[in-house]
């Protein structure tokens, strides 16, 4: 299953490394990354494949959210279908 992970927050050293480390620990494969600074906010969007994930998706959502909170970031993981449905005919 493909999902979109969004990471938004104040820019600090090592955000990408930490998020990627967590994803790799959980067996999640990163397919694409786009990262930018929007109005001084670090904004990263990742397309990931959770086929080989070690935990159920809802668990992964929680892990990412908690890890984000600990770093002062907002991290969401959502199934890709929702974005396709809303923005593609």
């Amino acid at each position, binding site marked *: 299953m493909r999902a979109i992970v969004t990471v938004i927050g104040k820019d600090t050293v090592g955000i990408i490394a930490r998020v990627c480390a967590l994803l790799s620990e959980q067996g999640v494969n990163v397919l694409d990354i*786009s990262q930018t600074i929007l109005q001084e906010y670090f904004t990263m969007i990742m397309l990931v494949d959770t086929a080989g994930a070690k935990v159920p998706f*809802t668990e992964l*959502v929680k892990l990412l959210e908690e890890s984000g909170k600990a770093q002062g970031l*907002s991290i969401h*993981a959502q199934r*890709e279908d*929702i*974005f396709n*449905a809303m*923005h593609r005919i």
Partner: protein
Amino acid sequence: MSMINTTEILDTIQMISQQHLDVRTITMGISLLDCADPDPKAACRKIYEKIVRSAKDLVKTGEEIEAEFGIPIVNKRIFVTPMALVAGASETDDYVPFAVALDKARAETGVNFIGGFSALVQKGMTAADEKLIRSIPAALSETELVCASVNVGSTKAGINMDAVALMGRTIKDLAARTADRGGFGCAKLVVFCNAVEDNPFMAGAFHGVSEADRVINVGVSGPGVVYHALQSVKGESLDVVAETVKKTAFRVTRMGQLVAQEASKRLGVPFGIVDLSLAPTPAIGDSVARILEEMGLETCGTHGTTAALALLNDAVKKGGVMASSSVGGLSGAFIPVSEDEGMIAAARKGTLCLDKLEAMTCVCSVGLDMIAIPGDTTAETISAIIADEAAIGMVNSKTTAARLIPAPGKKVGDTVEFGGLLGSAPVMPVHPESSAVFVNRGGRIPAPMQSLKN
């Protein structure tokens, strides 16, 4: 490999986190026609068992979808066959136990509301219909979250004025029995004209007899998203406003369609409809009234409000229809006063009055909704308000409804607090002149002409 662009992804996230985008309800319809039994205890047992068996995974599935897609699903609900049709087979005069069975099943399945303590009496009342209506005050005051509805009119049948008169007295009785909570019982009772059989919204949801055994219906929301979208087209023409609303409604509905299909697949229950409604909440920034004001009205309820609402309601439907494979239910902008922060403010200011709300219901869904009126309003005046609202529905071939709360001991200027999504209702004035002689004539208002439409 392609990825949706950053702006679109961030748009969606912002809609959810800042503009109150949510799926208002996943509602499971369950037919209870096969639960009828001459023994009322056996019927209640069958009702409880069928609901629990059918909907045991509803809340869990809803929560899983919420977590995986990152979309809040505010309510999970159940609605059932109009209870008068099921209870009619039982040898009893007391229908309260049927409501108690519904409430028990509601608690066991963990859903937020259960609807369908209902009767359809637009043409006439059976003994069962009358018993059900007479049980409503006790049933709704003795249960927690059971909702009732009564259909008193239709375009094909006219308006059953005996039923309208009875509903006025029923509402007064129900308010008195729940006086300690501001007449809260009345917030769970809707009086309809042209009720639909697939409406997922409470308090008026029931599972029509032409429906399948079970069905999943979804109601979307999104006033906050529409309001936000309109802020980016300030000063532009109304054509641009309409197009903006359409595009926004399309996105919101696509999300609802996705959730509906997913829930239907996971629960193994056929997908029924998506209800394209703009359903407000008392939260700041989630108001239909504020959308109308964003179009350029100083306060909702002033001149121009009906026109602005007509534009909004139509654009929501046009945008939503293409986004879903099956649209139904009430589908339109709701204007429940106590549940809409902007409506509450406009009513407090005195700009929004009952007469203007009545006019607004000619062009939107669904009626005079969640309106607190003085506690000393007579049953006949309540019936007359219901009759006016039903007449609008009957003549215009649309659904209309009244959900009025004659708040015991309260007068104009007071506020009744219901809490949560039901919000707080400023007590609004009604005309003091009597309609009693008209209401007490009884009988039927004949069905209207369907040609010569002026």
